[in-house]
């Protein structure tokens, strides 16, 4: 299912991310990092980058396994899932206060305070597009010549002839993809909830410090991981669907229009993919300075 293309996309995403990460390292440390205990910064970063590393490994293994391109299709969502798991574990690693004297700031922390607004809106749009596309391709799919459900697209051209195309992103692909994306969304929700709920750290003097920059960084990584989790399958499914629709010679005009619209939308999805990769590999990107609590 567009194998070489998906491999190229994964490699390209990694390359973009590494380049952005290198550029980010050239920038001076943000002033809003000052005061946050190094232990908290280090632990959350180690888990986040551990998730990225595990994601590269898992997606590499998945890409080389699975029947008829299923593994390759799941490689990118599994990468995103590992990053999300890394962020989630990192946030859980920040322990609540255990000393005799415990402090809390009177404040209301909400998920929307930490999410990158434009990127999260774009990712939600892409997720809606993926769901709509998968619902349509699943509904339109038919068994292929070997009887595998939802792996082919067929159209009756005349009472005596039928034209078909495969592979098609029907239930054979959409069900496992949908499950992995759903698990990813649930993990992202849990991670965002933990980003908001975990307690604020204290500095060596026992004063609570503002760690909003760390929370924004983690929320950026979560949003970026969701972007990768959704965008690469969206690009793959769009290409396969467009190829299927346009390959049928007796297609109606609506299929032609839909096919070309799907191809035209590849460009914005690629931009979103690069944007999401930047959010994962360089989560310092565009984090705002915040007022210290104390």
């Amino acid at each position, binding site marked *: 299912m567009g194998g070489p293309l998906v491999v190229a996309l994964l490699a390209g995403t990694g390359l973009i991310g590494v380049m952005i990460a290198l550029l980010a390292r050239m920038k001076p440390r943000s002033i809003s990092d000052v005061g946050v205990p190094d232990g908290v910064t280090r632990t959350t970063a180690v888990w986040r980058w551990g998730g990225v590393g595990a994601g590269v490994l898992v997606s590499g293994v998945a890409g080389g396994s699975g029947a008829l391109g299923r593994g390759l299709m799941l490689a990118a969502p599994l990468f995103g899932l590992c990053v999300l798991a890394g962020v989630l574990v990192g946030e859980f690693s920040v322990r*609540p*206060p*255990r*000393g*005799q*004297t*415990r*402090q*809390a*700031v*009177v*404040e*209301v*922390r909400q998920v929307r305070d930490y999410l990158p607004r434009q990127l999260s809106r774009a990712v939600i749009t892409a997720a809606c597009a993926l769901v709509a596309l998968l619902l349509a391709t699943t509904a339109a799919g038919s068994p292929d010549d070997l009887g595998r459900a939802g792996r082919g697209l067929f159209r009756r051209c005349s009472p005596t002839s039928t034209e078909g195309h495969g592979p098609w992103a029907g239930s054979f692909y959409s069900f496992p993809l949908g499950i992995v994306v759903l698990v990813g969304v649930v993990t992202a929700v849990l991670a965002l909830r933990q980003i*908001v*709920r*975990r*307690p*604020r750290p204290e500095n060596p003097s026992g004063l*609570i410090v503002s760690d909003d920059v760390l929370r924004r960084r983690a929320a950026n990584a979560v949003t970026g991981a969701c972007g990768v989790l959704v965008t690469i399958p969206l690009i793959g499914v769009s290409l396969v669907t467009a190829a299927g629709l346009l390959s049928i010679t007796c297609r109606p005009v609506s299929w032609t229009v839909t096919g070309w619209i799907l191809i035209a939308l590849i460009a914005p999805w690629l931009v979103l993919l690069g944007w999401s990769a930047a959010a994962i590999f360089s989560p310092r990107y565009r984090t705002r300075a915040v*007022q*210290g*609590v*104390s």
Partner: protein
Amino acid sequence: MNPRPTLVVTADDPTPPYEQLRRQLVDLIRSRVIGPGDRLPPLRQLAGDLGLAVGTVARTYRELESAGLVHSKRGGGTRVVDDPPHLSTSERQRLLHQQAAIYVRHALLLGVDRQAAIEAIQQALAE
């Protein structure tokens, strides 16, 4: 922007944690540090920050609601009522003297002299 107020719970204090929280929140609301209509931290967030059970914070909020200082709305959180009882000037003075007396007693127990106690307060005010 002023630093946001903090709540402190001391585990070895004989006063139960819910009561420690209640007293501090009452003071903050009555002195208008937490203003009318302001939202209190969500139960789970505050419980997590202080390492307390959610039920402990919920009890504090129930007590505040019974006292007519806050109101809770499903989905809207717990907010300070529009016109909470105000701390009068004389009461504010009384509380200030009470806290000052507690501080002086602790300072004397530490064995510091008068000048050191005053300097510590001046330093704390400057921070």
